[in-house]
């Protein structure tokens, strides 16, 4: 591995960090606040109120639904608790709060008007029956206390301690609570996904615009220098050919040169006008990969093939460029370092994205090299960086003498220009990579 040259690419510095999606961020904040509120609400729902020295605590409260708590007067349930610091002779009076005949919240003594007392057991616990209510109150009262049957406000005279608790089930036990949690979590995930997508899209847009400006500059440069020069040379050659006698042996040769120059001028003009055609029409990835070994001047001894699976779909031009660069890097590694006898590229057009596989049967990459991903070596870091930029996943699998497999997966909404015609997920509101602000139906 001594001669493994540095084939990594220079880092592309980002000029501007893309702003995160405000909407998505707001979504996260809102859902988190919702959760906090819900959980906070739960904690507050059981508050024990302590008046003086002695204290009452509920250990068992009937849990019924809200509608039962406000209506059903025929039902009796058990309510129980403990008392700390009660003097001998003191008793408990239980109240349940419900809506009376005039539509007002009222405390009703429990369980029955004729029997409002609850004895404190020797082990400081108490136990009674109660009708359902929105709230329950337990009062520690002195002997001889006469509890009112109903009251808007709890009595305080002759009361040593009071405890109040919610009558309906705590919020986390309600049927809709898990649903809200799931929804909040889903909202958070969607929001995060939105932020991620926004970033990827924004980075791509930025690079796309930079690239467009760069292409215009290059085109202008070529137009002003090369093209004008060649046109001028061609004009002057034309004049010179005219001045040579018609029977001169140089005539046909010069005419041929003129013809070639004409072709060069036409090609140059077309290239400049198209600003490089690859961005205009959907570029053919398969063809591009087919050409790579020839372009790089690699030998023909290695068996090389490109396989396409699925129906090819038009790709986003800028994403295509990145895929091509990553694949090319992988191929350079395979051809130059693996010593493989067979190298294969597989392009798989799936419903949810494009998978590019570069596989060889060569010597493999050393595991420590893979793990450490040493900067520059094998261009691995460059490939990873590129993949990350377009929101793609890159995996490199390699074993000694088992060859190397580089798998790149780019999600469909990033890589494909058009949505799948009858995909399963078309109902999902999926943000798409829009470089154009507007797409014209053809």
């Amino acid at each position: 591995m001594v001669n493994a040259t540095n084939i990594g690419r220079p880092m592309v510095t980002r000029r501007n960090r893309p702003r995160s999606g405000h909407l998505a961020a707001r979504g996260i904040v809102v859902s988190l606040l919702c959760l906090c509120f819900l959980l906070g609400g739960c904690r507050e729902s059981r508050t024990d109120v302590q008046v003086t020295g002695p204290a009452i605590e509920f250990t068992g409260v009937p849990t019924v639904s809200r509608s039962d708590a406000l209506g059903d007067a025929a039902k009796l349930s058990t309510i129980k608790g403990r008392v700390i610091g009660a003097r001998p002779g003191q008793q408990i009076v239980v109240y349940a709060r419900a809506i009376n005949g005039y539509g007002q919240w009222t405390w009703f003594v429990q369980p029955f008007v004729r029997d409002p007392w609850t004895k404190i057991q020797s082990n400081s616990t108490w136990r009674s029956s109660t009708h359902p209510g929105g709230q329950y109150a337990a009062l520690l009262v002195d002997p001889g206390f006469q509890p009112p049957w109903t009251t808007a406000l709890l009595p305080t005279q002759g009361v040593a301690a009071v405890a109040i608790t919610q009558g309906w089930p705590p919020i986390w036990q309600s049927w809709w609570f898990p649903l809200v949690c799931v929804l909040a979590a889903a909202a958070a995930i969607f929001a995060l996904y939105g932020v991620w997508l926004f970033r990827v899209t924004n980075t791509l847009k930025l690079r796309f615009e930079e690239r467009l400006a760069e292409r215009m500059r290059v085109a202008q440069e070529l137009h002003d220098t090369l093209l004008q020069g060649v046109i001028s040379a061609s004009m002057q050659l034309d004049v010179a050919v005219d001045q040579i006698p018609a029977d001169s042996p140089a005539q046909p040769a010069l005419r041929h040169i003129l013809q070639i120059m004409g072709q060069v001028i036409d090609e140059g003009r077309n290239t400049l006008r198209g600003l490089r055609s690859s961005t205009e029409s959907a570029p053919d990835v398969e063809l591009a990969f087919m050409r790579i070994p020839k372009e790089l001047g690699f030998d023909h001894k290695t068996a090389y093939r490109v396989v396409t699976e699925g129906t090819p779909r038009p790709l986003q031009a800028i994403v295509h460029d990145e895929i091509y660069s990553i694949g090319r890097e992988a191929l350079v590694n395979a051809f130059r370092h693996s010593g493989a006898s067979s190298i294969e590229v597989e392009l798989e057009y799936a419903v949810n994205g494009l998978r590019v596989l570069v596989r060889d049967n060569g010597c493999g990459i050393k595991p420590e090299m893979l793990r450490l991903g040493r900067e520059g070596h094998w261009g691995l870091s460059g490939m990873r960086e590129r993949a990350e930029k377009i929101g793609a996943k890159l995996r490199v699998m390699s074993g000694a003498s088992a060859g190397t497999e580089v798998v790149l997966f780019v999600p469909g909404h990033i890589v494909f220009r058009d949505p799948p015609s009858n995909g399963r997920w078309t109902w999902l509101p999926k943000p798409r990579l829009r470089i154009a602000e507007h797409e014209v139906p053809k």
Partner: protein
Amino acid sequence: MSEQARIRVFSVDDHPLLREGIAAIINNQPDMFMVAQAANAQDAIAQFRAHRPDVTLMDLRLPDQGGIEAMIAIRAESPEARIIMLTTFEGDVDIKRALEAGARGYVLKSMPPKELVEVIRQVHSGKKRIPPQLAAQLAEHMSDEALTEREVEVLGQIAGGNRNRDIAERLFITEETVKVHIKHIMEKLGASDRTQAVAIGVRRGIIQL
């Protein structure tokens, strides 16, 4: 042929190499000669005044202002001036603008020199001349809706690699307005993204390289 009888040709182009080539062609013809050359619009107007050439070959792109603007300035002084636009690209919008502004001919630099001198002769004899391939290009987009001045401006900014926000700042309009302009540009040009819009704009001469 006497000096007076020959067609006196004036060449305006900012590329010295190209002027050299055109001069070689013109001076090689027995019936014409190069009377003067200019490299920018300002110089072109002054030289025209001084030399009163029979036929002027005008580049579409000049460093100080457009060739069409220079032609308009010259024709304002001398309405009879016979001017041929000589350019690299056959953009229909350029051709239309040039003809509307009074150009007598429109020729591509890449055409064979024989065609160029033929057009010069015909224009000198008072005819108008557009090569067939340019006429076809013109006809193809005859019914297309033209971009407004503002839209052309926005397209030029896109070609400069500006983002919507930058364009809005430069043109003193809101980002929303920029988006509406871009939407209209895409529709009118039949483009599906920014690069394509720029490419079509360059090809049709809506914006210049």
